[in-house]
């Protein structure tokens, strides 16, 4: 990288001196200058390509390879599918996969909430500008801060239980009950991120043909009918995009919440693959096993990602 930068600086300086040259002078610039112009795109791309290949794509291959080797005494020796066998036998990892299943089931809710709110904002509910700013704010807060705030609110002797106690509902151990904790963490994640999807939906609405809505109004369509027959079909691309990004968000950006709110507990009930990878790598000193879990997570992501690539390419073609 550093070897590239001085070249860039040198060339631009030279270009400045050449600036007054008439167009005809190009031919006389010599082979060196033309060669450097031909190489320019590669020079411009070099730092980016180097970083992405070395620190994103190469580790991916390394990790897959790593997942077939052993930990501890067997470090570096090939052990075939042992790590994967161990993963599937580990109740913590199976719990993590079960929780991924739960996320998939909750996905439609996590998409529908911002979708409906965006619709209302688009229809200019009184105060829509204010709502938009408020709803979006938690989306820019770190999951760590969000988690810390909810630790406070959801503590057993905390304010939520105080309020519920006031209306005669017994206290719930929101983060300490294995049957409840995962739902609570997902709920907080949705609270914190629905503003992001909302903004994406609103960007989609900006491309919506307003005459369609007028036509629906002239035909006397109710709001639910308008949503079903006009808005959903017109925004199908945006809806697909939100589905994919919300799923990816659930699989890869809940670490901060899990780390702060539950640490995977109670009784391992709030493990997700990303948290399992972290524990095996950092706490249990089982990097090869962690790599196997990474590879499984990547498999899940790949299915989601391929879907997204096809959407992106369609977008590029339309643009």
């Amino acid at each position, binding site marked *: 990288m550093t070897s590239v930068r001085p070249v*860039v600086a040198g060339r631009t300086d030279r270009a400045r001196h050449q600036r007054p040259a008439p167009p005809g002078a190009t031919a006389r610039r010599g082979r060196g200058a033309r060669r450097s112009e031909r190489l320019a795109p590669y020079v411009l791309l070099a730092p980016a390509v180097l970083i992405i290949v070395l620190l994103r794509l*190469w*580790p991916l291959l390394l*990790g897959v390879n790593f997942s077939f080797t052993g930990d501890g005494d067997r470090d570096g020796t090939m052990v075939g599918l042992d790590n994967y066998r161990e993963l599937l036998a580990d109740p913590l990892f199976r719990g993590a996969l079960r929780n991924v299943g739960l996320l998939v089931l909750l996905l439609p809710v996590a998409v529908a909430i911002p979708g409906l709110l965006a619709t209302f904002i688009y229809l200019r*509910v009184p105060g829509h500008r204010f709502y938009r700013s*408020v709803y979006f704010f938690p989306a820019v807060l770190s999951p760590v801060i969000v988690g810390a705030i909810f630790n406070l609110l959801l503590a057993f002797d905390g304010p939520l239980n105080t309020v519920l106690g006031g209306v005669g509902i017994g206290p719930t151990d929101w983060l300490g009950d294995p049957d409840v904790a995962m739902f609570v963490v997902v709920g907080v994640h949705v609270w914190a991120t629905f503003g992001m999807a909302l903004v994406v939906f609103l960007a989609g609405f900006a491309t919506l043909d307003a005459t369609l809505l007028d036509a629906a109004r002239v035909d006397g369509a109710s709001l639910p009918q308008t949503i079903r027959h006009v808005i959903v079909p017109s925004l199908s691309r945006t809806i697909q995009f939100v589905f994919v990004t919300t799923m990816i968000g659930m699989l890869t950006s809940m670490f901060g919440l899990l780390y702060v709110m539950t640490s995977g507990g109670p009784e391992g009930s709030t493990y997700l693959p990303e948290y399992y990878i*972290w524990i095996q790598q950092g706490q249990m000193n089982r990097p090869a096993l962690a790599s196997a879990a990474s590879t499984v997570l990547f498999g899940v992501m790949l299915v989601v990602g391929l879907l997204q690539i096809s959407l992106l390419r369609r977008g590029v073609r339309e643009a």
Partner: protein
Amino acid sequence: MSRVRPSRWLLALPMALLALATIYPLVFTANVAMKTRREYVLDRFSLADALRGENIATAWNTVDMGRYLANSVGTVTASVVLLLLFGSMAGFALSQLRFRGSSVLFLGCLAALFVPFQVIMVPLNRIMADAGLVDTYPGLVLAYVAQFLPFTIFLMTSYYRTIPTEIVDAARIDGNSVYGVYRRIMLPLGAPALLSVGILNALFCWNDVLIALLLMPSAEHRTLMVGVTSLRGQYSADIPSFASGVLIAAIPVLVVYLFLQRQIADGVAAGSTKG
């Protein structure tokens, strides 16, 4: 839209309640941060009887929040500068220049978008350790740049595609080299996109906890968000000081949001509609 009008006020009510549910946790935390421990134990909800700074001072001093804040500001600044530099260079090349392999390179960057950090975390840690970059600021900055560069390139490429090639051609005829075009045309014209992408990247890096936890094990290298995770152990019985630490960490983002909300939303929207 007159038919919808009566129901509009009906919709406004649940939306107002939701807005309250969105703001209240933050207001509650800020209020608790102003309370004494005694006040909090007696009544969770009462307004603090004074705007007190003691808890803030306690959190600032005992947890070394000042140091963590400085660490975060430094790494985020360096990361964003490098991301914008490399991202705009690559975006310019991919959008405006014709050369062999450009589509392969673009697809390569796109593919990297779908490699989440969790998947490469173990081998990346090894690579960083082998290079002697674990627990160093250059290592963390490099990891952030690698993490958010594909997204940056993607947005800069789509933005630069909207600039007519005639502008570049004209500048070339005027005798500018490719690098001259980048510096004199693409950087200034790209300013709005660079601002949006820069703020988004700053938020991503600022809010990260996983990468910093993995690559910066020693306590004096903690970023602010890693510092927040240590608050709970520190103040398990002193809730107001805990809330103060959280507040200190939340305020910079709140300030940025109040001033640059539009740019943040534009960046997110651009990522979705261009995508």
